[in-house]
């Protein structure tokens, strides 16, 4: 059937087109309905993709019938198909969440335009996760950067600092993108192709080539900025903490994850062929940087009093876990990284959602002071928040535990006790900041009696959908863990 054959293209095209339509609609409600139905359609298509990939292994979609390496190709295989599903799933839930939350946080006349940009972001994320063309990726990178900057800047209605955060993100993101495109240039000069599959073939023929190596290094550096990998994460805490809560929960859940996926693809798809460099990069760059990120993020979060910023800092640590798993350069390490990509997306999304609901409830920014005693006033949100928080620590029966399980497995295989200590100590440290928040919200008395505004009921649905997914993935992990294994199989073979 025509539609099913063109799913990869449609996943990008539909949100893109609807986005144009939404931008000229003035009614926020209709804009939302259009956005929501688009995300539902995308989710449906993502499920179809899983069907296709599980029977055909790799789906290569050539745009306009121009076969790669001449035309642009989208590639869907077991590495990214679950990522696409994740993006689709989270965008549905985040759109539900946005229904009440965006309306409370930004001006009414901006709403439909916000949804237009929202769809643009979704389209670019799908594009980023599917494209098999190095330059085409740059295009999507720019679309995603510009649209996320707009979304983050919308937080200015609540807090003017959102503007600075958005501006910083714009500049740093642009630097990252420039690095990336320079790298693509070098690589193109060396290999004469932009198609990722073709690049691999050419590199094998070329042998060691300085231009290609330089190009790859630039590309990796550029992607690291987008992925929020320490030490080029500096845009991330401010961007997530001042964006509207719907935006921060959506972006924190999937935006960096897509970049990390592409990072892994570059690393293990292309870079791996240059053996003398990959070992150096993983062992002496990525691994120390990840360990520092884990401790920096966790310890900074302990001393942070602004809750959204706290979770943004914890994201840096969590991204550190993912890159740490990658840096082990083993099959189980890579699958652990992919498993944590999925689980952390759900957990961090849920946490940001809960914090957003709290902030709307008390009508102030969520801080360690303003949230005193909120847990008792908003028990439904608090319960969801606690479950997501426990998952972040990695308590058994939550999705976070499964991540930790496979991460530990990968580490024990290396036989290095130091790494065990890194993960164990950092997860024990993460208990500190979460416990502090739990205690503030449940045990402490508010300075003045809390006036809880009418709670956003629709937002509960999305929060709890996330929380239930976290719980299901925690007690029945087969789906997530096998998707991680399959991704690792596709990247490095089942060694």
């Amino acid at each position, binding site marked *: 059937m025509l539609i099913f054959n063109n799913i990869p293209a449609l996943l990008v095209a539909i949100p893109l087109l609807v986005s144009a339509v939404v931008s000229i609609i003035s009614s926020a409600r209709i804009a939302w309905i259009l956005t929501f139905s688009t995300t539902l359609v995308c989710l449906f298509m993502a499920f179809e993709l899983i069907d296709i990939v599980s029977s055909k292994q790799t789906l290569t979609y050539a745009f306009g019938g121009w076969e790669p390496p001449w035309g642009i190709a989208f590639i869907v295989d077991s590495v990214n198909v679950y990522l696409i599903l994740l993006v689709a799933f989270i965008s549905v839930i985040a759109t539900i969440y946005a229904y009440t939350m965006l309306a409370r946080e930004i001006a009414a006349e901006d709403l439909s335009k916000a949804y237009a940009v929202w769809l643009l972001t979704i389209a670019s994320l799908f594009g980023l996760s599917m494209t098999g063309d190095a330059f085409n990726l740059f295009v999507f990178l720019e679309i995603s950067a510009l649209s996320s900057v707009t979304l983050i800047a919308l937080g200015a209605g609540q807090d003017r600092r959102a503007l600075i955060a958005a501006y910083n993100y714009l500049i740093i993101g642009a630097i990252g993108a420039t690095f990336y495109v320079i790298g693509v240039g070098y690589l193109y000069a060396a290999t004469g192709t932009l198609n990722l599959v073709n690049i691999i073939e050419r590199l094998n023929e070329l042998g060691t080539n300085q231009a290609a190596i330089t190009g790859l290094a630039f590309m990796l550096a550029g992607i690291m900025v987008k992925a929020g990998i320490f030490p080029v994460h500096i845009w991330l805490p401010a961007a997530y903490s001042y964006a509207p809560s719907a935006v921060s929960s959506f972006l924190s859940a999937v935006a960096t994850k897509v970049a990390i996926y592409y990072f892994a693809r570059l690393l293990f798809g292309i870079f791996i062929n240059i053996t003398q460099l990959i070992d150096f990069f993983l062992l002496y760059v990525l691994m120390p940087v990840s360990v520092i990120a884990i401790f920096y993020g966790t310890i900074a979060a302990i001393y942070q009093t602004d809750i959204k910023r706290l979770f943004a800092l914890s994201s840096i640590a969590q991204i550190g876990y993912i890159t740490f798993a990658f840096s082990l350069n083993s099959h189980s390490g890579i699958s652990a990284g992919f498993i944590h990509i999925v689980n952390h997306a759900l957990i961090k999304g849920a946490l940001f959602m809960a914090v957003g609901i709290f902030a709307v409830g008390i009508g102030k920014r969520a801080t360690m002071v303003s949230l005193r005693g909120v847990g008792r006033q908003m028990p439904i949100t608090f319960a969801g928040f606690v479950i997501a928080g426990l998952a972040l620590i990695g308590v058994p029966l939550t999705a976070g535990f499964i991540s930790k399980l*496979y991460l530990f*497995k990968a580490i024990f295989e290396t036989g290095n006790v130091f790494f065990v200590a890194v993960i164990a100590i950092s997860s024990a440290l993460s208990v500190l900041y979460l416990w502090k928040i739990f205690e503030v919200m449940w045990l402490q008395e508010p300075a003045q009696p809390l006036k809880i505004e009418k709670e956003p009921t629709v937002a509960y649905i999305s929060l709890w959908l996330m929380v239930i997914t976290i719980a299901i993935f925690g007690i029945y992990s087969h789906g997530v863990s096998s998707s991680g294994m399959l991704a690792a199989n596709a990247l490095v073979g089942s060694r």
Partner: protein
Amino acid sequence: MSNLQLILAFSLATPLISALAVIFCHNYKSLRDICGPIGGVITFITALVIASAIINGQVVSLTLWQIAPGIEFSFRVTALGALFGLVASGLWILASIYSVGYMRGSNEKNQTRFNFYYAVAIHAAMAISYSGNLMMLFIFYEVLTFSTYPLVTHNQTKTAKDAGRLYMGILVSTSLLLFLPAILWVWVVSGTLEFTRGGIIPIDFPPSLLPFLLAMFAFGIGKAALMPFHRWLPAAMVAPTPVSALLHAVAVVKAGVFSLLTIVVYVFGIDLLFSSGSAFWLVWLAAFTILASSIVAIMKDDLKARLAYSTISQLSYIVLGGALATYAAIEGAALHIVMHAIAKITLFFCAGAIYVNAHVKKISELDGLGTRLPHVFIAFFIASLSIIGIPPLGGSWSKFMLMVGSVDSGMTLILAVLAISSLLNVFYLLEPCARAFFKPAQQEFHVENHILTILPPIITATLCLLLFFAVDWIRLLTNLMVIP
């Protein structure tokens, strides 16, 4: 589902149902307060059925689903688990009756919340005892920690909250830093976490790493209160006495030593541990804990604090038994779980009864109280003798077995440790009774008589006596742990 599976499910669900019933009966006080005892009786009966099935060599297990390869959400009762299940559920009956008397007598607030978490904690203790693998044990170990936090901080004073923080801090951080990594280590090297008699550690596991793995378990299980991770236990004594009695003398701490003993018997395997000598250091650490905490106990004037340090000391007897890893020592350790639980709960019941009925907390203020609360102090006396290990009381058996075990292992110096410890026990446990009966009263006591607080210690003190003669029945279970 076979009958036994049904009974196992019932045994695990009853405390939870009872917890929910407590919430539904929030407005009907008498109805609410009877939920605990009824739940206790049902759970105890199911635990008895399970224990007899285990003695008859049947397999009692229930597998729900697979969490990850080699990690199942499943229950499978071991001989030690059946024993611990009996202890936890049996004492829950008495403790829940006692807590009604105590909570009413001292007019505590938030009694519904209290009863709810109390029942949830028992559920966790039952689930720990019937766990089929290390992961299940860990999950419910954490449930037990979290469900007892609201009980420790029940009074919501600053001291209570500080104690709660210390409690969570030590228990959660040790379990996350050491216990969980140790479990995952076992999972990675052996591919399973299922409890198996003879152990699951593969033969090719490097012997030089065994002491480290054991250390990760011994310190990671903070509930076993091995020094230097013992501070949470005295701190937790700010909780109302029924909590200290059931949880911090029986369920929580015993869950800790139970876990450690289970790991020794069903993960390492007694033979491996004994032949490799990797628990040698643990023997001496346990011996040190026994003596050091006894000495601290002597210096405590607060009755509950003294009992808390005595608990730390007695827990290390069980750790010692596990670490000696001879058949007699393991049996002695398992027996000590039972004997010490019953004796110590009696002591705590008495301490609470003294507080509720005469409003005295300090040992130095007990002078002359003996004649006013004779039943309480006689019960206290009997339980003290049991802990010291004087026949004909239950505690003498477990101490005897531990001594035999230490001779078996060739570590005769441990005999001296046990003997000195008994002397110290005499010193600090008999002092309260001696003061109460033989010293003249220095103050006027306003003594009330809350019968529900006085009856349970009398019953448990009688049990101390009866268990001396009934020890063969318990050994039907402990024998299964060691005899192949």
